[in-house]
């Protein structure tokens, strides 16, 4: 007699009882989209048009149509690059790191978070290409044997970045796709017509056999184990783009952990921003309960504290170092030309999340949605502060200057949100946005024999 215990469930989805219900509830999302979806999709598609239109204009006229000039050579483009890479990170945190830590609340949000990762890296990856101006020279970043016998300078953080970002995109796309394969098979088994053909191809002929699951499970663990240090390395490398230089305000050893914490913080906020409407529109209340939002809010709170600590220690060390230029640089951040950006950053990232200490706020989904928007804005401005205020006020007073983003730069920034939204909207209709197979893993399995009564002491969390 096999003794099969199924106490592993119980903690996550009290209103979902049968495995078939999961397939029904998730796969119905893949049906014909409603008017609201088409309206959003049209908006996103228009924004994508604006994005490529503005970029095309910049390619035609030259980088001069942006506000970039001496001394501020890095502006909205690099700010947005760091912002979008940061957004990507919490997707990998939820899908890989929380998987390794066996946090069961990740199951219902990780698919959406992982999709967010892939699309955010796709968005981020465009910004260096926009920023370099002469797009037709972008391939120079790639090491390849050429007639000039030149190789990239591997001592440069910018080349490390090329490797970090391409690796990150490849690995997270593979991880994302692999995780969806069993669910695509589930979609295939219920679809008809053209969609069935599509899912037949992209589900790779998955049958859910013991052999497939056995190797799949192990491969998934190893991919998660590889993605975990990867995600920490990517934002560290991004931070070294700054920290390896000697610009005051950039040259700090705190940068790598500070950037990683900030990345996860902004990414969790973005997950909340995306998942709240997803839950409402597709009726996923049974799968995304307030407990899930509570867990995300706690993660947001923890990372906000790390980020606030990093801000304060930066200011403290600038003062404590006694270094005139460092001190001036940070004084200039708080009270100089760009004081407003710094204060937006401090209020949105340091003060607004204080509300997350209160249980009532963490359990209120509208409140979390609003806070998440504040954090998104604050984290964009954090990168703006780091990039622009440091550059505009460097060592020599004659080389100080002011940077104003141009209309083209702002169009590309706004367009990048549409580009991201465009892919995310397609994702909600083509791939199961909630992981069917993984939800079943945390549900109690159906048993013919009544399970023995769970020991109350054993079942206690």
């Amino acid at each position: 007699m096999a003794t099969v215990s199924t106490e592993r469930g119980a903690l996550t989805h009290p209103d979902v009882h049968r495995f078939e219900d999961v397939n029904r509830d998730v796969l119905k999302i893949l049906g014909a989209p409603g008017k609201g979806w088409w309206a959003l999709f049209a908006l996103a598609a228009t924004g994508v048009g604006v994005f490529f239109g503005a970029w095309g204009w910049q390619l035609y006229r030259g980088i001069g149509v942006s506000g970039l000039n001496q001394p501020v050579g890095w502006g909205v483009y690099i700010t947005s690059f760091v912002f979008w890479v940061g957004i990507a990170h919490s997707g990998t945190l939820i899908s890989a790191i929380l998987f390794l830590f066996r946090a069961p609340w990740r199951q219902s949000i990780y698919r959406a978070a992982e999709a967010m990762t892939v699309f955010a890296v796709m968005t981020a990856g465009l910004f260096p290409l926009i920023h370099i101006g002469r797009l037709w020279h972008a391939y120079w970043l790639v090491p390849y044997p050429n007639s000039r016998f030149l190789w990239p300078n591997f001592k440069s953080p910018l080349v490390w970045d090329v490797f970090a970002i391409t690796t990150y995109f490849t690995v997270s796309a593979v991880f994302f796709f692999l995780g969806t394969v069993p669910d695509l098979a589930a979609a295939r088994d219920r679809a008809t017509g053209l969609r069935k053909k599509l899912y037949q191809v992209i589900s790779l002929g998955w049958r859910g056999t013991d052999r497939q699951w056995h190797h799949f499970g192990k491969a998934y663990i190893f991919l998660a184990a590889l993605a975990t240090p990867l995600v920490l390395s990517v934002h560290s490398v991004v931070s070294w783009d700054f920290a390896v230089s000697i610009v005051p305000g950039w040259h700090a050893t705190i940068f790598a952990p500070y950037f990683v914490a900030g990345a996860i913080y902004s990414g969790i906020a973005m997950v909340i921003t995306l998942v709240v409407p997803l839950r409402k529109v597709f009726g996923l209340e049974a799968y995304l309960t307030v407990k899930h939002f509570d867990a995300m809010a706690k993660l947001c709170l923890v990372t906000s504290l790390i980020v606030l600590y990093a801000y304060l220690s930066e200011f403290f060390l600038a003062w404590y170092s006694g270094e005139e230029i460092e001190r001036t640089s940070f004084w200039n951040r708080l009270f100089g030309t760009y004081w407003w950006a710094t204060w937006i950053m401090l209020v949105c990232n340091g003060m607004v999340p204080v509300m997350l200490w209160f249980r009532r706020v963490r359990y209120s989904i509208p409140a979390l949605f609003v806070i998440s928007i504040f954090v998104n804005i604050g984290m964009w401005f954090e990168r703006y502060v780091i990039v622009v205020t440091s550059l505009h006020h460097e060592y020599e007073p004659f080389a100080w200057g002011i940077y104003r983003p141009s209309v083209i730069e702002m169009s590309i920034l706004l367009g990048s949100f549409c580009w991201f939204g465009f892919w995310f909207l397609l994702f909600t209709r083509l791939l199961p946005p909630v992981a069917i197979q993984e939800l079943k893993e945390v549900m109690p399995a159906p048993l013919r024999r009544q399970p023995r009564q769970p020991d109350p002491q054993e079942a206690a969390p």
Partner: protein
Amino acid sequence: MSVAAGQGILASYEYLDSTVDAIERLRKAGFDDVRAYTPYPDHHIEHALGYGQSPVRVWTLVGGLTGTATGFAFTTWTSVDWPLVVGGKPIVSIPAYVVIAFELTVLFGALATVIGLFVLSRLPSVKPAVIYDPEFSAGRYGVYVEATPERLDEARRILREQEPVEIREGGAAHA
């Protein structure tokens, strides 16, 4: 698989414990070619089928180490091939190359893992599966066994004992 003249029986079950019992009894009775279909990975079933470690780990390790070696070798070779002093640093600056080597470790390791998975679990498989039930991706468990004609009755009896929802018999065809 080696049973050329074998015939396949597929039983689908509603309950996990019935499935595990059916697999265990079949294996105890000496049927070696038992396969299971499940809507999610279940360790009870893996245990009943007697799975050990998956060789995917070897692919990950070899891929990762190849990546590390490639990262260091490539950066060192290109630096020597174009010896340019940058920032007063040595031509071959190992600390800087750790980043490249690390990224390539992860990249090669991940890609090798996926290739290993595809090879070991025979994906992608384009052949339409004769023995399959769309319910296996929803909520049902399947047990498939191949038996020689003389042992067919015995296999059928063991599968029936656990009250399957459905039993199908067909040729020896499965991926």
